[in-house]
Structures are given as structure tokens and as C-alpha cells.
């Protein structure tokens, strides 16, 4: 409801704000909405979610559709104005003609300004199944003649734009699943430590300190390298996700623990206990809601960390591997300076990583401000 409101999709009456009647969540939402960067972050994340949900119709080509006419081709700019300065309502890209580099004699396409390939919207292209079910062949944009590669192509002629859009789903879902697992781990372990205290608390805190004091990335790398190479895409995907979440739960566990320690001797907890609530019920119904906002903030911070770790792992060839596609897997092609030198556009998926991490950081900042009742 409120999320839709942001985009002005619902007609609403001039809202009268009644802070005295608003729930805690409403108050937080009001404060969050004032944080402009956080709203920008939300918008970007929404865009990524759309990319992950509908990669096939958004991208003009299938992720493994080879274009033999444009191998290792540079990104193609859409234009509204042609060379003579004439305006065209329908954007177009200039044609390409095959040629050879006069020095290296390598095959190299040259821009052919005499040809204009017009960009059309909702064109028919490679068939696909939406959500794996509905057969369709409509793509958001494409060209009737020639081809369009907005981000260029790689050394085998695959369209980088289509692949980057397709990779959104895996990159974000690895981070999401990883965050969920570390959230559960952190809440359970930190919760037990904080609520029962004593020796258990001591042991848990020592373990957390231990994990924090060792360099995690080499450990991640080593664990990922120990995965058998002959595993299929799905087991590898699951294993990498679990490895990433295994070492990320410590922050959350600490927050949960300290909040529980601070609140477990409050009067309302005593009252609940006297009226015969079980431990589980006290934690879930009485304690958890009082610091849930802090947990959400911590989770939004863990998300970019896991995203970056997955990207690094896959970039090195130790994480996900083709045919699974994540931004890190795409960046694997840009590993050597030679390929980056020949095709710098292979680094474009990295921009998506940066934007996604930035968006999460902004949202996290907004959430932190909104969740803190004492911030101005």
C-alpha cells in the first residue's frame, strides 16, 4: 500500500499526519521517505527486481545467442540525431560493416554511417518462456535489420546487455538467499546467547570473535575451491550461497545478543513470564518486535557484503561458473589485462555491481536513520 503510494499510483486524499495515532512502522516510513538518497536506492532496487523478474522480454537477445557478424564488438550508441543533425523520432544505431584492422589484420567492425538501423519496440525475436511457463517471443526493443548490442559483445559474440540483464537474477538471489540464511543463523545463535546468557553466551562470543579475527575472503576462497568441480550448476549455486552466509552471520548475532541482554530484564518481560509465557513466546512476541528494526538495518548492510563476495569469488573462477550467469561470472571474461585492453566494455557488469551495492547502502542508511527514534 505505502510502497505503491510512493510512485503516486494510488489516488490518496491529502494525508493528515497524526503522529499521535501512527504506529511505529508508519513513523519509520515517514522518516524514511524524507531520506532522498534512500528513496533513490529503493527506486534502483525496484528496477533490479524488474530486471530479475523479466530478463527475457527486456533483453533483445537470448543469453547464449551468438552473433557471428559482431564478435568482440564495441557498445553501440543509440542516436536521435543523425550526422547531418536531422532529428529522428525513432532512435537508431548506425550500421556496422565488417573489415580488418589495418595494423593487426584482426577482424574488426567499422561504423557505417550510411546505414541507419532503427530501434523498434516490442519486436518479435528469439522465443522464450516467461517464468519458464508462458511461451512468448516479444522483446522490449530490437532492430528489424542488422543488430543492436548496447553493451557490445564478448569474444564469442554473445550480447553483453542481454547477459547482464539475465545475470541480475542470480546475483541478487545469491545475495538474498545468503542474507536470509545468515539472518536465521544470526538470530538463532545470537538470540540463544543473549537470552540464556552465562556460559553459552561466553562460548558464542568467543566463536564470533574468532571468526572476526581471521581474514574471511581467503577462507571463502578456500572453501569454494574445495567444492568438487564436477558438480552441476544448481548444487554449486547452493553451496556457494551457503558458504557466503556461513561467515556473514556474526554481525547480526552480536546485535541480537546485545539487544536481548539489554531488554531481558525489563518489567514487561517479567510480567510475561509471570503470566506463564514460554521462553520461545517471550522472545518471539515480546522481545523480537522491540528490536526488529535494528535487525532489518543490519540485514541491509549484510546484503552488499555478500553480493561483493560472490562477485569476487566468481570473478576469480572459484564461485559460480557458466552456464549459471551472475555479474561475477560475466566479469570472469575480463580477468586478464589483455582482454580488458581489447574489449574494455567487458567491465560493464561491474558497474551494475557498484550501482546495486550503492543502492543497498543508501537504503541501509535511510533505514538506520528511520529506525533510530533519537535521530533528528
Amino acid at each position: 500500500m505505502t510502497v505503491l503510494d510512493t510512485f503516486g499510483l494510488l489516488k490518496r486524499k491529502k494525508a493528515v499526519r497524526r503522529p499521535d495515532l501512527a504506529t511505529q512502522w508508519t513513523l519509520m516510513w515517514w522518516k524514511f521517505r524524507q531520506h532522498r538518497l534512500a528513496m533513490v536506492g529503493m527506486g534502483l532496487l525496484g528496477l533490479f527486481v524488474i530486471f530479475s523478474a523479466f530478463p527475457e522480454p527486456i533483453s533483445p537477445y537470448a543469453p547464449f545467442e551468438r552473433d557471428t557478424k559482431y564478435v568482440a564488438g564495441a557498445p553501440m550508441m543509440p542516436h536521435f540525431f543523425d550526422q547531418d543533425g536531422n532529428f529522428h523520432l525513432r532512435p537508431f544505431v548506425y550500421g556496422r560493416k565488417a573489415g580488418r584492422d589495418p595494423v593487426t589484420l584482426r577482424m574488426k567492425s567499422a561504423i557505417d554511417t550510411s546505414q541507419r538501423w532503427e530501434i523498434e519496440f516490442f519486436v518479435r525475436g528469439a522465443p522464450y518462456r516467461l517464468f519458464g511457463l508462458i511461451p512468448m517471443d516479444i522483446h522490449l526493443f530490437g532492430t528489424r535489420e542488422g543488430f543492436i548490442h548496447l553493451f557490445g559483445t564478448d569474444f564469442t559474440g554473445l550480447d553483453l546487455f542481454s547477459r547482464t540483464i539475465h545475470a541480475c537474477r542470480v546475483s541478487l538471489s545469491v545475495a538474498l538467499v545468503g542474507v536470509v540464511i545468515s539472518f536465521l543463523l544470526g538470530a538463532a545463535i545470537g538470540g540463544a546467547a543473549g537470552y540464556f546468557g552465562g556460559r553459552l553466551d561466553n562460548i558464542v562470543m568467543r566463536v564470533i570473535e574468532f571468526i572476526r579475527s581471521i581474514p574471511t575472503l581467503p577462507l571463502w576462497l578456500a572453501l569454494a575451491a574445495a567444492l568438487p568441480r564436477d558438480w552441476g550448476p544448481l548444487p554449486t549455486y547452493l553451496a556457494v550461497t551457503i558458504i557466503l552466509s556461513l561467515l556473514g552471520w556474526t554481525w547480526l548475532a552480536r546485535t541480537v545478543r546485545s539487544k536481548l541482554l539489554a531488554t531481558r530484564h525489563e518489567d514487561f518481560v517479567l510480567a510475561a513470564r509471570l503470566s506463564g509465557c514460554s521462553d520461545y513466546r517471550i522472545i518471539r512476541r515480546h522481545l523480537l518486535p522491540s528490536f526488529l528494526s535494528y535487525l532489518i538495518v543490519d540485514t541491509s548492510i549484510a546484503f552488499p557484503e555478500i553480493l561483493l563476495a560472490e562477485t569476487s569469488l566468481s570473478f576469480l573462477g572459484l564461485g559460480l561458473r557458466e552456464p549459471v550467469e551472475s555479474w561475477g561470472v560475466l566479469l570472469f571474461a575480463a580477468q586478464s589485462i589483455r582482454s580488458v585492453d581489447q574489449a574494455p566494455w567487458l567491465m560493464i557488469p561491474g558497474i551494475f555491481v557498484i550501482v546495486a551495492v550503492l543502492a543497498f547502502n543508501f537504503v541501509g542508511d535511510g533505514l538506520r536513520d528511520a529506525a533510530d527514534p533519537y535521530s533528528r
Partner: protein
Amino acid sequence: MIAYLARRLVYMVVTLLAVSVVSFIIVQSAPGDFAEIYAARKAAAGAIISQAEIENVRLQLGLDQPWYLQYWRWFSNIVLHNDWGMSWEWKRPVGEVIWERMPLTLAIAFSTLFFMYVVSIPVGIYSAVRRYSIGDHAVSIIGYLGLATPNFLLALVLMYLSQKYFGQSVGGLYSPQYETAPWSWDKFVDLLAHLVVPVIVLGMAGTAFLIRAMRAAVLDELDKMYVLSAKASGLSPLKLLIRYPVRMALNPIASTLGWRLTYVISGAPIVGFVLALPDTGPLFLQSLLNQDMQLAGALIFIYCALTIIGTLVSDLLLVALDPRIRLE
């Protein structure tokens, strides 16, 4: 103080033991044990090797024993005989291979730490004192980007740019013309120039984080009453700033030195790999990719040991710096 030191030392030893177990598990985690790998290598080279011979190797290396005995063998060899095992990829003792490359890793790690603090403290103070100025906004934008960019991507971009616009490779440690040249001033300058990029790449995110922390800490102090009273008694702004708020703000920053070290050691392998430095980074990643687990396990152990010892040293420094820390 002695009691505190003793307790910390005991704790460190326990942590080191725990780390050594983790490293050993990693050594063991490669599919197939050493004897099988050995046999596969021999077979690939054309030698005919029988099952009995494999068993023999296994017996010789003690691979038929339970894991804790194997662990003890591995660990005691390291501690007592400084014997880290053999790397079959390099066909040399692991210890030798690592120690050739370790000095460079250490040099880069400590230069990065130095760089992080030298840059972030003044910039953080500036950002706090000139809050919401253009400079402050610029610093926060760079900071956000620095935190969001993966190390390796920054390394790639810098390499690409320098290749394209300066026609010079920043990979490796020396320019080609100095590779085999005897030591000279020019070679030294060339070496420093090549160290700048890894230090910046490795220190970027940490610096961004420290700037934010420093800015927040100074801002917290600036609001306090003692600053007002010092101002009222006519202390010059700069003197006041340096003498009180900055000194107070430095403590929380300095106390995270151990974590920063962990962070730097953690990121170093990837940066070393991408920039093709002759340090332990490429060594580590190669060993993982080729499942040369003796080498990988040893390196993990060393990385962990470095951060644990570093954390201890930084904690002791902190105690020396801040008289308010109570040693119960």
C-alpha cells in the same frame, strides 16, 4: 598489566591452535588424498603405478591414520621443524615458496595500513569541521563509491587506464627495463611507482570507511561542552581542534587497527592476483585453482596468524595510548 598480557597471550595461542585446525581441514578438503593425486600425476606422466604402490605411499605419509594424528603430524612438523610440507605444483617445500614472496605481501599490507590512516584522519577532520561544504560532499561521494567498488574492478580499471593513456603497465613490480637491472635510484623509484596502485586499490574501501568513522567521531566531540568552554576562554580554533576533539576522536579510530589489518590481509590475495604482483596473492589463488592444498592451507594459516598477532599488537598499543582502558 602482566596479568592482562598473560591472558591475551594465552588467548592468542588458543586462537592460533583453532586456526591451525581450520587450515588443516582445508588441506584435507581437496577431493582425493595426497597419494591418489600423486598416483594420478605419475600416471599422467606415463608411469605405470600399481595399487600396492599407492598404498605404500599412503602408509609412508601416514594417510591411513585417523585425522587427529595426521593433524598432529602436520602441525608439529610446522612448529618443531619449520617443515610446511611439499607443494606438488612447485615441486619444492612449501615454506621456501612462501617465504620468497612473503616480504612483498607484508610490505604492501603495512604500506596500505599506513596509507589508510595518513589519508583518512586529516580528510575526516576536514569533513567534520567543514560539514556540508562542497569538499565534504565530494568526500562522501568518493567514500560511497570506494565502499561499493570491488577491489579487483578498481585494479582492472586502473590497469586499463594506465595502459591506454600512459602506455605503461602497472602490473608486476618493475617496468620491463628494470626487471633485471641492478639496484639503482631509478629502479627504486620505479618500484615505488608500481607499489602505489596496489596500495590505493587495497586501501580504498578501508580509507572510505575510516573517513566516515573519523568524521562521525569528530562531529560527536565538537558538540560537547568542553569545546565550548575552551572556545570561550580564547583558544585559537586550530589549536583547540587538534588539542581536544581530534585527540578524543582518534581513540575509537585507532582501536579498530586490528580489524583494518584483517581487512587488508583479506583483500590482498585478489589484488595481488589481478595486478600480477610477485607476492603471495597469485600463489594462493593458483594453489586453490590447482587444488595444491598443502600450499593453500599453509598460506591460510599464515594469513590468519598474521592478523591474530597484529590484533594483539594493536590492542597492546591501544592500552599504552589510552590510560582510561582498565585492565581488570
